């Protein structure tokens, strides 16, 4: 119980500070770099193409889907599953409501439970794929496994907490919150930042291609 109070109190405060400051630093240190004005005569407008790419990259290019179906499908399942459990589980909505004052209806918790189970299995499969696929295995370093772990732990502990598989409940709930705090602390310093920077990345990609008249 002391542990739960710590993770809900000082622990969460620390995590929130690191998370928010870290993210803002990371975003600003990217954006303030800027880019030089392009003097070439544009063939198309940057804005529309950039925004379009921001949306269209959510769907895989057909050939890539055929060549790496597992990465694509697995990526979809776990991202969507993660967002469903994160944003549609009522206790989480309450937390967001308390922080940001935004609230929306949740979905049935046994549905969340099923989604969480699928997500956990998919994350394990993704790890297996990272360890075994020649390209992913070659590219992956400690950071990749760290980010996997800090993403996986909240899902796992959340599942254990929901099913009360660890006794007593305040302990497992505390572990769940702690794992989320770990994710929050690790977030700004790792490639988890892609959750924000992908917006710029896609926009720049689409804008630069759009200027040349290509929808990337």
């Amino acid at each position: 119980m002391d542990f739960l109070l710590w993770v809900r109190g000082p622990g969460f405060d620390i995590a929130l500070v690191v998370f928010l400051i870290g993210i803002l630093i990371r975003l600003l240190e990217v954006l303030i770099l800027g880019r030089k004005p392009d003097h070439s005569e544009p063939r198309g407008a940057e804005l529309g193409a950039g925004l379009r790419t921001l949306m269209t990259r959510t769907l895989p290019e057909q050939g890539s889907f055929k060549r790496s179906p597992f990465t694509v499908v697995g990526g979809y399942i776990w991202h969507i599953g993660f967002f469903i459990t994160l944003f549609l589980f009522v206790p989480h909505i309450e937390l967001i409501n308390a922080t940001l004052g935004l609230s929306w209806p949740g979905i049935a918790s046994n549905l969340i439970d099923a989604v969480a189970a699928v997500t956990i299995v998919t994350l394990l499969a993704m790890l297996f794929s990272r360890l075994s696929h020649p390209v992913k295995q070659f590219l992956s370093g400690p950071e990749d496994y760290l980010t996997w772990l800090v993403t996986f732990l909240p899902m796992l502990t959340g599942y254990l907490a929901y099913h009360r598989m660890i006794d007593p409940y305040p302990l497992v709930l505390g572990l769940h919150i702690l794992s989320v705090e770990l994710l929050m602390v690790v977030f700004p310093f790792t490639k988890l930042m892609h959750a924000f920077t992908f917006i710029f990345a896609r926009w720049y990609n689409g804008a630069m291609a759009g200027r040349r008249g290509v929808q990337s």
Partner: protein
Amino acid sequence: MAEELKRIGKTLGESLRERGVSRRGFLKFCSATASLMALPPAMAPAIAASLEKAKRPSVIWLSFQECTGCTESLTRSHSPSVENLIFDHISLDYHHTLQVASGAAAEAAREAAMHENEGQYIVVVDGSIPLGNPGYSAIAGISNLQMLEETVAGAAAVVAVGTCAAFGGLPQASPNPTGAVSVSDIVKDKPVVNVSGCPPIPTVITGVLAHFLTFGSLPELDSLGRPMVFFGKSIHDRCYRRPFYDKGLFAETFDDEGARKGWCLYRLGCKGPMTYNACATTKWNQGASWPVESGHGCLGCSEPNFWDAGGFYNALSIPDSDITRQAAYVAGAGVALGAAAGAINRNKQSKAASAHETVTIDDLDKQS
């Protein structure tokens, strides 16, 4: 009758029969006792066999930093009933609120009971023990700590009744001015049963005593020293409103449609998911109702530190601090730091540009 029993030292079975209670009545009693102890009805015959031979134990009840709510719960909420029968068969030798004797005579009764039942009596404690100034709470000039240590020395077991005795409770809440601690913080060499709750459910107190009376042993305990039969499952798991939680149907305010329809109170701060107690089945006031049934969320009173666990009306998943304001400050700091980090990067970029030396075709080979 208690006096009489004490004198003859009869078993419970004998004494009931002497009072003209038939075997059928005894079976009824056993069935009620099984229900009281939250044991399966199938245990009734075993209970009968044990109760038949049970002897009345001596009980010493110590009250420290408490509000007497626990005693009130035990004595007032129920008029005489099965529990009363049980109490007829335990010897409550010391309870400074209930006993007739006072002053030196009362203390003498306590010492006599300890002496006569050396190694066999049960100590029930309600209230926390101050470790700060002993004057914060003393009885007959004896500090709570001293009295507890003295009394427990010859006890068979200790039952900490109420959250104050079990976990420190209200006196221990921040900033804990008296240095209050729980019974189990002091008593390390005797079995301690925590019957937490603020107050605890009366039938749970009597259920534990009944268990000791019936089987001569303490019930199975959870990791916080509470009897599993009563504290093994959370309020949430046994709550009749649980199906609404699972369906995602929540009362948003205390007077909305959801509240009227009896939907889940999670969003109104119900601490049921992290609270282990028997309210949902045992209920209160002779099974009339219980907090959630009356439309108010569980406060989590049977859990350690429940006073300090955040607002009663904040959903369980919300951290304690004022995160909105905190987040605003932090975001401000983040923007400032981010702007600084960006400026440093920008500076590096332009310094590199001014340090640029033109690459000519004479510069293509590696400098040797």
